């Protein structure tokens, strides 16, 4: 889109006063394949686009969006934004836009637009076969792949203009195994910002086998015990815990609204000195990576907790203004239908010194978590609950037997204080993180860590024998 048109829309938005205006225009193409029960169930391909116009006056924001990208519709949207808030005398002039070169997120060797339906379907079939290679207990295999091409034009009244385009791919496999009336599932997903090379042959089929193996292994698992015990989270489990139980509480909007246990605690020790937490959208091709955030700020690595001390929050432009600081490049949105808010990108606990095997060997009794399920966190008090999809009991420093149906409950700040061993490894998991009705792609990671004590809510009730069901 021409600079003159963007300039005119920004001027229209600011016609009745305001401190800041921006426009975000998005065009995307998506496609996907879903395979289930030996059958290609559905495909989709879609074209989606629209523009969002934002006006900030003091502490008020007007946000108007439209899926109609005609000039008339955009001008109307700008006019609506201008009228939405009371006029003020404070009127900034939009600074003339500086043209910036088109940014391509580095590395998309195999562009989704060049991948045929045949190839996508073949990849899905390959995963199905890999999962079914585990034999009789495998009951159901569902496989999905999806890709996205997105281009964005962003301009604001500070004269900044960014044009960005990137691709994202994702694959997921869900396997149900069954034996003697017991059903267990295994799930794996893989993806990143880049092209179809991210679903490379071996990696992808390995994941499918892994999902199937998990479902089969959990068939012979015993019900998880209930009670308080040491919990070791393997690097393989990914960083769901740090994302949910800590990361959200460090998002500046929640902090400023008094909805975070970390409010007013910058500079304080909030975790064990072994713990360093980082958010980094500049990591290569991870699921939460980007070159610019969704309001034109260049991506950067942000240390949030350094050796236990809280050093920073995650900011977008708006919350940064409020705290008289700079945006950390974490202003993200799901689409043109949403205003940007502070969000995580790739969030992780930095690796420490311990050999992961030694952490297990030094634990008399506890739960070893290899894979996390879903979870939920109350950011006000820090309480969390997580489902565990794969776990083993540790007895006398050894992995004893698999358990199923475990749930972890605890409190985020307490768990961070209670981390007493941090491994030298690092493992990632990916997901779509939801907040205020917006989903954005993220990844999270952690080394193998031990938490001194958490409440494990198991399916095994007091007085029941440990095996069978």
């Amino acid at each position, binding site marked *: 889109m021409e600079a003159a048109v963007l300039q005119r829309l920004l001027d229209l938005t600011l016609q009745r006063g305001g401190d800041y205006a921006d426009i975000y225009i998005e065009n995307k193409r998506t496609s996907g394949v879903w395979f289930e*029960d030996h059958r*290609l169930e*559905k*495909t*989709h*391909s*879609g*074209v*989606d*686009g629209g523009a969002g116009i934002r006006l900030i006056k003091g*502490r*008020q*924001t*007007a*946000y*108007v*969006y*439209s*899926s*109609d*990208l005609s000039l008339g519709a955009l001008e109307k949207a700008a006019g*609506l934004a201008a009228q*939405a*808030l009371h006029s003020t005398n404070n009127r900034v002039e939009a600074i003339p836009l500086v043209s910036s070169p088109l940014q391509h997120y580095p590395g998309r060797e195999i562009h989704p637009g060049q991948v045929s*339906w*045949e190839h996508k*379907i073949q990849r899905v079939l390959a995963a199905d076969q890999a999962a079914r290679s585990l034999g009789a207990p495998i009951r159901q295999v569902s496989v999905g792949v999806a890709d996205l091409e997105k281009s964005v034009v962003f301009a604001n009244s500070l004269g900044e203009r960014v044009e960005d385009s990137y691709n994202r791919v994702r694959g997921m496999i869900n396997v*149900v195994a069954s034996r003697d009336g017991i*059903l267990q*599932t295994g799930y794996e997903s893989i993806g990143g910002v880049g092209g179809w090379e991210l679903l490379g042959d071996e990696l992808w089929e390995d994941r499918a086998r892994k999902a199937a193996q998990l479902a089969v292994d959990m068939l012979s698992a015993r019900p998880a015990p*209930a*009670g*308080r015990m040491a919990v070791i989270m393997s690097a393989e489990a990914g960083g769901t815990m740090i994302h949910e139980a800590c990361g959200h509480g460090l998002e500046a909007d929640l902090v400023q*609204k*008094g*909805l975070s246990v970390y409010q007013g605690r910058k500079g304080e020790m909030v975790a064990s000195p072994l713990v360093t937490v980082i958010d980094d959208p500049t990591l290569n091709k991870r699921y939460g990576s980007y070159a610019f955030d969704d309001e034109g700020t260049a991506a950067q690595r942000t240390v949030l907790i350094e050796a236990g001390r809280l050093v920073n929050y995650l900011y977008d432009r708006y919350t940064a203004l409020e705290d008289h600081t700079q945006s950390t490049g974490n202003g993200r949105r799901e689409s043109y*239908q949403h*205003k940007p808010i502070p969000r995580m990108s790739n969030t992780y606990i930095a690796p420490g010194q311990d050999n992961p095997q030694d952490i297990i060997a030094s634990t008399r009794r506890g739960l070893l978590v290899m894979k996390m399920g*879903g*979870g*939920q966190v*109350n950011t*006000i*008090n820090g*309480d*969390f*609950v*997580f*489902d565990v999809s794969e776990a083993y009991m540790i007895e006398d420093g050894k992995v004893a037997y698999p358990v199923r*149906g*475990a*749930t972890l*409950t605890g*409190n985020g700040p307490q768990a961070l204080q209670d981390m007493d061993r941090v491994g030298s490894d690092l493992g990632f998991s990916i997901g779509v993180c939801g907040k205020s009705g917006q989903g954005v792609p993220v990844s999270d990671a952690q080394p193998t860590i031990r938490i001194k004590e958490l*409440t494990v*809510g*198991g*399916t095994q*009730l*007091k007085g029941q024998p440990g095996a069978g069901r």
Partner: protein
Amino acid sequence: MEDSLKSVAQHTLQYAIHHGVQVEVYASSQRELQIEAANQRVETLKEATESGLAVRVVNAGRLGFAYTSDLKPTALREAVDAAMAASDFMPRDEHLQLTPAGLIYSPLQTYDHDLGRHPVEEKIYLALQAEEVARIADRRIASVERSVYDEKEFEVVICNSLGLDVYGRGNYCSLYLYAVAQQDGEAQGGFGTMSRRRYSELDAEQVGHEAAERAVRSLKARSMESTVLPCILEPYVTVKFLGLLARMVDGEAVLKGKSLLGDKAGQEVARPVLSVVDDATRSDGLASFPFDDEGVPTRKLSLVEAGRLKGFLYDNQTAHKAGLASTGHARRMSYRSLPSISPSNLSISAGQVDDHTLLESVEEGLYVTDLMGLHTANPVSGDFSLGAAGLLIKNGRFTYPVRGMVVAGNMMQLLQDIEAVGNKVRFYGSRGAPSLRLAALSIAGV
């Protein structure tokens, strides 16, 4: 908008018919106004318009699907071409059926003309009023995170190559508020919410009071020991379980052997106190509409009647597979997705016992006010293990709040354990339920 939506749908349909395939076009348009207030002022005012179109082709029994938000003629034709191209790779499915023309639709009042007549200033006032009520309701209320007024207006056109051509529109409005209570350095949150088909029925005062009460009553929560206790689930919690039940009466899950209820039609799955109904024709229902997202007429459907399982929810495809007729439960999240099965206004019918009597009937038990992680419950096995918070009941009265527990069980057992049903149904969005008393629930504490 009605005429332009119909014309893009017709244009797409005619173009697709020339390919010699069966085709269905779904076009929708939506308008939204959202006002978010906090600290006695509007923080964000959002106005949105969005339109899009989806095309499903059935090419010799093979499904193709594509959508577009670009409604220019070239983009519409590209969507048809994309759906055609993908259909070539799909397996044949004799169960893919389009809705025939000439069906009878219930006349429903789903559009409140009054809503659009009220100025934005008045709606801003509603959000501010709710905030004020919450703020002064109790001295322990420290802040209101946000108070939101939201209204949506939508219209839908569905037409297909069998001659089906239906149009409908609707609107609704909601208030939502989240308050934070503080005492001795501890903070707890609570929400209040209300959604209505009719603007005049929104009650800001009630929403503000409810949020404040929920936040304050959670303060000073203690932990509790592991035990098995009778429980009362308040309507908000029951509604969450209803979501799990919805996945078990989904006709597709049943056909695929993924529902524990799949082989229990006609059998007793709960005590006679329990009845569950899905009804898209309720006059006040948020999901009320004369037709579903395939254009099939909607009706009232009994799912559980006095403890006996009556049937399941179907769309065209799954109904054909099961040898039945669609129950009118095809739903699309938006034009971007294919229809799938979903309930409309799903509710547990009111029972006989008033809430006070229900409480008095429990000597020692737990009144469950919140559950965390229900989306992680396993609909295939029915097992759940959820974070819970509530109020401890002693001798028929509330004592103190408790939190940090895990309640575990299985959905089939839970259904059997419902021994009393409250007489007041409360709707949260399109799901409604009264309070329920459960004979026993396993609680893992600290």
